[in-house]
């Protein structure tokens, strides 16, 4: 399980935008996987784990909807686990990248949880359509549909902060 913990934690962090909640949900997901290991029927183990984590995230988001108390400051503020500096970049580039990263995360949070999960798994974590389909227990058609809608919505949101965006965004209106 340890080999998959970064993938599970990454999904939870992008889904919940809170490092504390992501840690709690990741731990819950691993415990749930441990309890339900008898129900694992083969297939890609990572996809099975990610499905449990995605369900745990959905439960957490539903809980939040009932009792809203978490802000995005956790991942959009300084020292966020999502703001990992790239040492090969200049300070200016690094600052711009951090800003863009926060902007993208805010855009991800504006998507519906269903679309967000597909975009995170497919585009951020690099899973194939088939893996996403298995992880989220949805059809390939649904993966394609949610991904295209999520990308289109995210594109619209990012275009509102055109100055942060790289070349293709900045030169088109």
């Amino acid at each position: 399980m340890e080999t998959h913990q970064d993938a599970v934690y990454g999904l939870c962090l992008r889904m919940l935008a809170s490092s504390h909640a992501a840690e709690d949900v990741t731990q819950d997901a691993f415990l749930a996987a441990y309890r339900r290991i008898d129900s694992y029927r083969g297939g890609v183990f990572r996809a099975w784990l990610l499905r449990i984590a995605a369900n745990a995230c959905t439960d957490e988001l539903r809980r939040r909807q009932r009792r809203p108390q978490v802000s995005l400051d956790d991942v959009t503020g300084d020292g966020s686990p999502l703001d990992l500096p790239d040492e090969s970049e200049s300070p200016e580039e690094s600052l711009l990248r951090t800003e863009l990263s926060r902007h993208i995360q805010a855009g991800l949070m504006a998507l519906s949880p269903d679309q967000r999960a597909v975009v995170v798994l497919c585009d951020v974590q690099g899973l194939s359509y088939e893996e996403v389909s298995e992880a989220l227990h949805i059809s390939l058609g649904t993966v394609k549909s949610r991904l295209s809608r999520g990308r289109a919505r995210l594109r619209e949101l990012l275009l509102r902060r055109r100055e942060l965006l790289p070349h293709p965004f900045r030169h088109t209106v």
Partner: protein
Amino acid sequence: MRLLGFRRHPVSEEELSAYLDGRLPTAAQERVDAHLKACTDCSRKLEETLSLVAELRRLPRATASRSFAISPELAAATRREADRARQDERATARRAYLGLSGATAAAAVLLIAVLGVELAPSLGGNGGPASTTPSSREAVGVTAPQGSGEADKALSGGEPDENLAPEAAAPLPSTADEQGRSSANATPAVATPYDAAAAAPQQAQPVAKESSHLLLWIVEGAAGGLIVGFGASAFWMRRRWIQINRS
């Protein structure tokens, strides 16, 4: 396609998204290729989406600040918790099964009791040899059934037998034709004060019997429904209990 002045774009957003992932069938891929050469909007959209996907892939990979490996202590605690939950569930299923079985038995007893009451002669069921059903009595037009003279006396305030009209004391006609003839010959009997006084309670008696029959049927139906409902639930709960015991 033109629909109410709206022209649908030949390449959808979904096709464009699948195109950049190389997930379109060959024919569709070629169609999108050809379209992109002519449509600047789609070309721009594709370029922006490609750039977006590149940025998403470049996002920093989050690494957790701690390990989520399940320690032996945590594993033992999880097992204990799971065992406790299973025991609780088993106890709940057993209690529910026993309760539902008892409720099924009680409903069965109620149904048997109601059937016994319905079939008893005292209520005018088929078991009473001297009784006549209200409908048969109405068919022959009888106002005073055999054997109810004592009750009639009591109802009429203990009047002596000699006050009875001869027509009322006459033997019962056996068929409707005979009754028709006798009623045609006995016009004064309809107008006697005795008959007017006795008619009301005698008409009320069949109505009361009908009501009691209806009530019994309702109770029987309810008891039957409860037996089916409780029985099915008890069966399902027993299966659940066995499943938990096996797990």
